[in-house]
């Protein structure tokens, strides 16, 4: 089980010692044009998690390719580029310009911008034609049937899934006004874990695609639970804000967690989390 970071939760150029603990570094989402992002306040603490409304702040495609990507390559860590946009053509054009990276993650689910007009499958299909790099579709568990979306992006050519993105939420201050300037933001942290485990389970069953599981992972045991639900790799997000040594720690803890659970490796745990009901359905 590889340990990655969740997109947007690490700046490898300012914290290379954190990025070097990872098996691959996932960039903050790159959009065609530069974005300054949302007005502050951008973050709020909540019970067992936090809200963020960063708003896809990024230098834009041109500067990312000319300036950031070459410097990221010098880190010696495999790179995944997170790609965002506002229509299928936006995504596809960025994909066509990328080379020499391990994979592309399509951010189809940022809670802090208006949704792209095109469907997830349309975007994946356009990108599939624009690049030969592996495409991971990052989906939201806010969709009523995330497994259906997973099936659609798999049919459109996705090579893997990143599950899950943050869920939209609101926190209020003492005067009952939203803490975040944007009003709402994406909920992350331990509060998300049960939602994420379920999304990984149903998408694994629906597609069998490789899955990067994320959402509230803080320990090796958490990561192993994602493996048991069907994830091949794990990504750390909010925990990086509290513990810059989390990737190395979680990797070390994974070995202990496997031993405690009686499995040799996280791969051997994959699928163990099937419920009795699912088992019955499979047999029938």
């Amino acid at each position, binding site marked *: 089980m590889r340990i990655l970071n969740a997109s*947007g*939760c*690490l*700046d490898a150029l*300012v*914290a290379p010692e*954190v990025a070097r603990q990872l098996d691959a570094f996932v960039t*903050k989402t790159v959009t065609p044009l530069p974005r*300054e*992002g949302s*007005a*502050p*306040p*951008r*973050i*709020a*603490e909540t019970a067992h998690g*936090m809200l*963020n409304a*960063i708003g896809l*702040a990024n230098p834009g495609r041109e500067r990312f390719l000319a300036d950031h990507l070459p410097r990221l390559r010098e880190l010696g860590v495999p790179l995944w580029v997170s790609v965002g946009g506002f229509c299928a053509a936006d995504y596809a054009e960025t994909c066509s310009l990328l080379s020499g990276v391990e994979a592309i993650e399509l951010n189809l689910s940022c809670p802090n911008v208006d949704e792209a007009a095109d469907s997830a499958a349309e975007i994946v299909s356009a990108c599939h034609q624009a690049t030969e790099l592996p495409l991971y579709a990052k989906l939201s568990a806010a969709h009523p049937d995330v497994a259906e979306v997973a099936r659609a992006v798999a049919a459109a050519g996705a090579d893997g899934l990143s599950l899950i993105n943050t869920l939209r939420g609101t926190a209020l201050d003492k005067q009952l006004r939203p803490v975040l300037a944007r009003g709402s933001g994406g909920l992350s942290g331990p509060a998300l874990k049960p939602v994420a485990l379920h999304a990984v389970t149903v998408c694994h069953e629906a597609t069998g695609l490789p899955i990067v599981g994320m959402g509230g992972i803080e320990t090796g045991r958490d990561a192993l639970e994602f493996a048991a639900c069907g994830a091949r790799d794990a990504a750390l997000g*909010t925990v*990086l*804000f*509290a513990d*810059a040594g989390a990737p190395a720690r979680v990797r070390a803890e994974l070995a202990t967690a496997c031993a405690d659970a009686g499995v040799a490796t996280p791969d051997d745990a994959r699928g163990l989390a099937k419920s009795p009901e699912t088992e019955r359905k499979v047999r029938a």
Partner: protein
Amino acid sequence: MPDERSAQQRENDRAYMRRALDLARRGWGQTAPNPMVGAVVVRDGQVLGEGFHARYGGAHAEVAALLPGAEVVVDPVLVTELIEPGFDVFACGPEPMLHAVAALCPSAQLAWEAPMACGYGACYGCVVEIDGALERLCLEGPVLDAARVRAGVEAVA
């Protein structure tokens, strides 16, 4: 105005400051991770209150100094009148106060605060407007020249 303060007044200021330092020492060993802080509130030569940060989690010195006379409002301009030319000005505290200090002393260095999830540039949560662009305070600051920052709250009149 600074040059209107007499030698006697300046000597008094130093005495009040020594008193504040003595008060601060009473918190010795009890305030970590906070520093030891003492406060003496003076207006027109009259001591309105004294206090110190007695222990971590307890009232801060400035609050302690004003209790029980909590209705006393200290005009921030009085504080800045003490600034004599040739001194460097540093300030930390509530944002409206920092704006007041910035207005009175544009060369001041101010310690800004913003909600920070990570504190090392990872989360992009702590941006403030620095030199006209949203920048991460944890990387660019948190101590910045007063003239470089424009934050969300208007300065107090």
